[in-house]
Each structure stands twice: as C-alpha cells, then as structure tokens.
C-alpha cells in the first residue's frame, strides 16, 4: 500500500477523529453525524532514531530500499526555509539537524515499520492549536455551585439557546437582566408573569444569570434566551394542567431546555404520571431536554427517605438531586425508591446565592429546586456546543461528563453535573 504523500495538507485527507496508534484519540459525541472539532493528531508520524541527531547514515537508505520511499532532506534546502509544498510528492522528509524523519503514513503502516527496526520508534504528529480564549470570568469570584460545576471555566454561554424555566414567574425588572432576551408567559389564571413569590426568579438566576452588582458570578448559561413560564401561583402552588400548558408552550417555541423546579410527592409503589410523560415525550420530539427537581421530602438525618417525586419520576425527564458544598447528598434530597423514579444526576443545591425579585435583589436558598437549574444551564451550554445534537445525545453527554462521586447512584445518579 502506497502511503500518502507529504505535501498534501493533513486535513484534506478526511480524517475524522485522527486517533493515534494507541487508539486513544479525542472522543467525539457518540454519533457519526457529529465529527470531532479538535483532532489531536494529523495522521502523519515521526520516525525517531534512538541515538538521535548523531546518527549519520542509514535512514535514507533504509526508507528508499526497504519501502521504496521518495525521501527529501532538509539539507536540500540551502537558501530557502523548509516548506512542505516544495517537496510535494515525497513520502518522507528527513530533518538532518534533528535526527528525525516525518512520514506521511497511515497508522497501520507505522506498526509494520516499528516491527522492522528496533533502532527507531514512531510518534504521531500532533496538531497544534491557538489556545482557547480565556473566558472573561476566569478570575471572577463566583458562587460555589458555579465553581464546582466548572461553569466558571467554560467558554460556552448558552448563546441563542432557548431555556425555559416553568415556575412562579420572573421579575422582568431585575437590573441584572436588563440587557437579556426574555420571553415571558403566564399560565396561571388571573396572574401575570410578575414573580411575587421569588422562587422562579431565583431559578432563572441560577440557570441563566450572569454577574451580580459586585461582579460575582451566580448563573450558568449567561447568554441563554430566557423563556419564563409562570405555572405556579404567587403562593407557590399550581394545577398540573398549568404545567402541561407551560411544557407545550416551551416545546412549540423552540426551547431546547425545560427546567421544572416543582413537583408533587409520590408514595412508594406509585407509578409515574402518564400525562406528564406524554407532555415530556412531546417536548423531546421537538428537540427539548427536560429536567425536574427530585424533591425535598426526605430527612436523611432522621433516616426518612422519600421517593423521587412527580414529574421528576417520568422516564422522559431527568431527575436532579441536591448536593452541599462538600459534595455530599443534601439532607432533604429524595432518593430512588420506585423503580421508574431514578435520580439521574446531581447539582449544587445547598446555600445557593442567586437573583430574587426587587427590592431584595439576591437571596440564599436551598433545595433540589436550586440543583435543577444548574443542570438546565449546563444543558444549554451543551446545546450551544453541539447545536445539531438530539436530546438523547445531549443527555448522554451530560451524564458522561458528570463527575462521579463516592455516593450511591440511588442518591446522586451519575454524579455532579459538569459544564462543557
């Protein structure tokens, strides 16, 4: 098999993941439709003599006779600098001053070469990149949740991703959201979107907020398009049909993430709600991922464990448990007790600082309600990173990237949610 010529650019050879011989290249999202954007290797290899530069003879003769290669050498370039285009058609380029040779070879061939001569070893040619821009927030102080989830280090912001938070509404006059894109709708009869409770504003702050008035970062998807749906009254309760209306509205308006920090407790042995499951499947068919709070009915210090509530227990909805700052399960966080009510993942949920309706402006709250929007924000970042991915693919990636913890999967699912 004739190896490819040096002088063709590596990227014109249609390499997908560019895995090195050890087979450990960067892993793309598990779908043939989503190629890796940052291959680590060009597909070419360096042949390096163990003695190094001082080794004089042999390499050129060996390549020409044993392999029939056309060999160029850097010593051929007297007045001009070495440029690949000048040696188009060569199979190998010997760097005389360095004692290494560049080979334009496919992986399989290098294994053969390696077996031939123990004086040489083969190393894959790396692709070099300009380092990623340092995100502006890198030196920004942040809440422990933003730090622990890695949101502070992510270069993604959820730009143009529509993230719906179905809750008690939103304070649309909150100063931190003055420049933001907000679409709001109330599904509570006789109540406007105005959040007179506070919970909804807090959750929107966690998932979509940015910096507070002192420059402290408290939100995950800082540039997401906020879809605030009021499905809970100012007293904090709502009818199931309001939630179904909110889910339908979000799905029909192109929301990729639907966050539900609400629920109804269920009994051990109780099956999940079919109507919620249908609405969730409908939303997924429109491209959305849904997350819901696992619930706060448990009291672990008193050995009381409650099952994951409804609608978090639906198969088509990700259930989120709460962690405290030491990454232990929060005392109130519900557990997998019913077979369909699994905990899928966990998020920061104790002592969470976020936005609150004016004039209070900010507040510290705890609950699986606070963990859920952390995951929602991270999902928005993932949708920005992989804009053509399906909900299933995004969920796979979310669970794959989660930080595994020394906790029971029935309490913490895949672990702590981590930003891309």
């Amino acid at each position, binding site marked *: 098999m004739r190896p490819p010529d040096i002088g063709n650019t590596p990227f014109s050879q249609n390499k997908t993941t560019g895995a090195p011989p050890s087979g450990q290249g960067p892993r793309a999202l598990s779908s043939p439709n989503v190629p890796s954007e940052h291959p680590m290797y060009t597909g070419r290899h360096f042949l390096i003599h163990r003695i190094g530069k001082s080794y004089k003879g042999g390499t050129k003769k060996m390549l020409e006779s044993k392999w029939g290669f056309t060999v160029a050498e850097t010593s051929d370039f007297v007045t001009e600098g070495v440029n690949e285009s000048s040696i188009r058609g060569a199979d190998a380029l010997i760097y005389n001053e360095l004692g290494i040779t560049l080979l334009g070879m496919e992986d399989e061939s290098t294994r053969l070469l390696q077996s031939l001569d123990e004086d040489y070893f083969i190393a894959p040619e790396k692709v070099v990149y300009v380092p990623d821009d340092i995100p502006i927030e890198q030196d920004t102080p942040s809440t422990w949740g933003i730090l622990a989830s890695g949101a502070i280090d992510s270069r993604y912001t959820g730009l143009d991703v529509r993230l719906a938070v179905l809750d008690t509404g939103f304070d649309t006059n909150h100063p931190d959201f003055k420049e933001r894109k907000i679409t709001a709708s109330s599904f509570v009869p006789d109540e406007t979107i105005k959040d007179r409770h506070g919970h909804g504003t807090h959750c929107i702050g966690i998932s979509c907020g940015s910096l507070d008035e002192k420059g402290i970062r408290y939100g995950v998807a800082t540039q997401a398009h906020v879809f605030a749906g009021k499905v809970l009254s100012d007293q904090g*309760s*709502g009818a*199931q049909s309001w939630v179904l209306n909110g889910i339908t509205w979000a799905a029909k308006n192109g929301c990729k993430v639907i966050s539900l920090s609400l*629920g109804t407790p269920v009994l051990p042995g109780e099956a999940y709600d079919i109507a919620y499951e*249908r609405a969730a499947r409908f939303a997924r068919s429109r491209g959305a991922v849904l997350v819901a709070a696992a619930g706060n009915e448990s009291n672990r210090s008193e050995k009381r464990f409650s099952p994951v509530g409804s609608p978090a227990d639906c198969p088509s909805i990700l259930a989120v448990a709460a962690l405290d700052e030491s990454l232990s399960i929060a005392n109130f966080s519900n557990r997998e007790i019913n077979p369909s009510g699994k905990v899928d993942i966990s998020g920061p949920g104790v002592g969470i600082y976020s936005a609150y309706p004016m004039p209070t402006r900010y507040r510290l709250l705890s609950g699986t*309600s606070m963990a859920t929007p952390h995951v929602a924000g991270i999902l928005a970042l993932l949708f920005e990173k992989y804009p053509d991915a399906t909900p299933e693919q995004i969920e796979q990636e979310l669970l794959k990237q989660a930080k595994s913890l020394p906790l029971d999967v029935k309490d913490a699912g895949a672990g702590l949610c981590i930003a891309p």
Partner: protein
Amino acid sequence: MKRVIITVSEYYLDRLSIVAEGLREEGLTITQLYEFGVIIGVAEEEAIQRIREHKEIEGLTEEKETGIAPPDSKIQSPDN
C-alpha cells in the same frame, strides 16, 4: 364535579377529535385538548367511572396540585 386529566392511548392519537367527541357525549366538559393525547376536563363522578372503562383511555387521574417545597420548611430559607 371533578377536574380530571385523561391520557388517550397512543393507538388512538390519529382519531383524537373523535375520541374527544365520544367523551363529551359521556358527560365530560373539555377545557383543554393537547395534540399529544392528553385531555383536561370536568365531569360528575358517575361519568368519570364510565369514561374510565373506555378502551381508548390509557389513564385517568384527578388533577394533582403541584408546587415547590412547603413554604414553612427550613429548606428555601436564608438560614440554610
């Protein structure tokens, strides 16, 4: 009169409006009809019992109230 949430079997989704009409004839007043096969309505108890037996119905529950954690709980307070 009770408010109920009815889920229609997926097999009948292409005939949803016909199914809905049949439920109206049984005494259900429909307030919301979702294309994914969920119907919200109100009916008397005896009508509900009859509707439950319909083969097109996969599920029927009285509408649940949902909400955030109890407001008087220590959770969601600044002290935590």
